[in-house]
C-alpha cells in the first residue's frame, strides 16, 4: 500500500509544471530504478549479472524495430519486452551450468556479443549509427501535451514500468519461486538434495529480470526516439544496476530508492559542478561495491 501511495504521489508530479528536462531526468531515474529492481531479483536467487545491458538493448531494439515497421508504440514496447524475456530465458539456460563469477562473466559476454551483432548487422539495426525516428509515447489524454513539453507520456510510462517491476518482484519473493530462489542462493547443493531442481527457477529468474529490464529498454527507445548499439548494449546499463542495487541493500524498494537518488544526485549535482567528472560517482561506487560485495554475501 505504501508503495502504491508513493507511486501515486510521483505520478502527480508533472502537474506541478516541472520543465521538460526535469521530467526527462525523473523518467531516466525510474528506468534505472527498474533496472536495479530487476538486477536485485536475480541477486535474490544468488545470481550475479554483469550484463543486464543485453536485456535492455534487446528491449530497446525490439521495440524500435517493431515501431519502425508500423507497430503501435504499445505493441512495440510489448514485443521489445518479450524479446528481452526470451533473451533472459536463454541466459537462464546457461546459468543452469554456471555459477558465481563464471555466470557473471557469461552475462557480460552476452551483452558484448549482442552489442557486436547490433554494430555489424547494419541491414537490420542500422549499424553503429543505430535507428532513429522512433515515435514518442502518447500522453494521457487528461494531461495536456504542452504541460511537460511532450515528456509527460514517457514520465508516466517509466513510472508505471518501475511500479510493474516492483510488483513483480514482490509477487516472486512471496511465491514458491521466491522460496526456490532463496534456497538456491543459500545453498544450491543442499537444495538439490531436497528435490529442488535448479534449472527452471534460474530460467524463470532470468526471464523475469529480462522482461522488466527489456520493458525499461523499450520505453527508453520511445522516450529518446533513437537507439545506438554502444548506448543500449553499453556497459552503463550493466554496471549501473549492479552498483545501485548493491548500494540499496536487499530489501524490495531499497535498490529502486538508491537508483533514483544516485541518478538524480549524479545528474543534478555532479553534472553541473564538474561535467567532465560526472560519472565519477559510478566509478567510486563500483569500487565500494567491489570491496563490500564479498561480505554482503551476494555472491554464491
Amino acid at each position, binding site marked *: 500500500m505504501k508503495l502504491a501511495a508513493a507511486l501515486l504521489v510521483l505520478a502527480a508530479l508533472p502537474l506541478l509544471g516541472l520543465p521538460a528536462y526535469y521530467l526527462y531526468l525523473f523518467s531516466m531515474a525510474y528506468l534505472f530504478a527498474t533496472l536495479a529492481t530487476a538486477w536485485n531479483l536475480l541477486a535474490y536467487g544468488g545470481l550475479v549479472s554483469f550484463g543486464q545491458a543485453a536485456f535492455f538493448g534487446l528491449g530497446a531494439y525490439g521495440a524500435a524495430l517493431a515501431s519502425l515497421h508500423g507497430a503501435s508504440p504499445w505493441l512495440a514496447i510489448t514485443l521489445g519486452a518479450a524479446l528481452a524475456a526470451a533473451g533472459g530465458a536463454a541466459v537462464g539456460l546457461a546459468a543452469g551450468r554456471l555459477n558465481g563469477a563464471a555466470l557473471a562473466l557469461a552475462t557480460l559476454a552476452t551483452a558484448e556479443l549482442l552489442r557486436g551483432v547490433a554494430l555489424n548487422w547494419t541491414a537490420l539495426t542500422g549499424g553503429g549509427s543505430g535507428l532513429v525516428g522512433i515515435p514518442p509515447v502518447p500522453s494521457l489524454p487528461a494531461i495536456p501535451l504542452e504541460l511537460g513539453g511532450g515528456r509527460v507520456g514517457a514520465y508516466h510510462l517509466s513510472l508505471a514500468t518501475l511500479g510493474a517491476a516492483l510488483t513483480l518482484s514482490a509477487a516472486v519473493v512471496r511465491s514458491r519461486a521466491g*522460496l*526456490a530462489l*532463496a534456497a538456491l542462493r543459500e545453498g544450491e*547443493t543442499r537444495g*538439490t*538434495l531436497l*528435490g*529442488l*531442481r535448479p534449472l527452471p527457477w534460474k530460467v524463470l529468474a532470468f526471464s523475469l529480470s529480462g522482461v522488466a529490464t527489456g520493458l525499461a529498454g523499450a520505453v527508453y527507445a520511445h522516450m529518446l526516439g533513437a537507439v545506438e548499439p554502444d548506448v543500449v548494449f553499453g556497459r552503463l546499463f550493466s554496471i549501473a544496476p549492479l552498483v545501485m542495487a548493491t548500494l540499496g541493500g536487499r530489501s524490495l524498494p531499497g535498490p529502486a530508492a538508491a537508483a533514483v537518488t544516485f541518478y538524480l544526485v549524479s545528474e543534478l549535482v555532479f553534472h553541473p559542478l564538474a561535467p567532465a567528472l560526472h560519472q565519477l560517482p559510478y566509478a567510486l561506487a563500483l569500487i565500494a561495491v567491489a570491496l563490500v560485495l564479498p561480505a554482503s554475501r551476494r555472491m554464491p
Partner: protein
Amino acid sequence: MTLLEARGISVAYGGLVALGGVDFAIEERQVIALLGPNGSGKTTLFDVLSGLRRPAAGDVWLRGECVTGLPPWQLARRGVGRTFQIPEPFGALTVRDNVLVGVTFQARQPRTRAARLREVERLLTIVGLTGRAGAAAATLSLGERKRLELALSLSGRPALLLLDELASGLSPKGREEVVRFYARLRADGLTIVAVEHSFAVLAEVADRVLVLDRGTLVADGPPAAVLDSPTLRTAYLGEEE
C-alpha cells in the same frame, strides 16, 4: 525386498582411488552402520548414493531401477534423504523455511501451503525444534543444526536415509537421543545407512555393519561379529594380524 544395490562402485580423485569396486545390497527396513577410518571412502560413497558424484565405474540400483548418474534432485524425489557431517542449512532462512524447502520441492508433497506448513510443524516436532521455528538457521547451535539437518533429510518422506555422523560432537545425553531416534526411524519403516564412530551407538541400533578401508569393503556382517573382528582393528589402527 532389496531397496538399494551398489555394483562395483569405483571413484578416483586424480590418481587416488577413493572407492575401488564396492558391492553391497541393502534390504528394506534395515539399519546399516558404515564404518571405516578417515579417508576410507564413506563420504564419497554417500556422494555417489545421493547423486552428488557420478562413479567412474559401477552402477547404483534403487528398487530395481538403475539410477547411476541421475542428478541429486531426481534421487531425492525417488526417496533418498541425506544428512551432512557438518550441517550447512540455508543460513539466512528461518528454521521453518528451511524445512519448507524440502516439503515444497520433493515428490508427493501436500498441495496447499497450509498443509505444507503443517507437515513442517510435524517434522520440527519430531526433531524437537518447534521452539526455534522462527530463528534464522545461521543462529542455531551445532546440536540444533544437526536436528535441523535431520528434519531436512526427512522432509521428502524418504525410503532410504543416509546419515553422516549424527552422534559425533554430541553429549552422552544427545547420543542417547540419537539411539532412540534410530529406533523410531526404523519403526517408521525407513532404511538407514549411518556413518557412526560411536561403537556404543552402533551396537544398539545396527542390524548390520559394513567396514570400508581405503575404498574397499573389508567386512560385512552383524555388529557382534564385525565389531570384535581383527579386520576392524586392522582398518582403524593399521595393526598387522
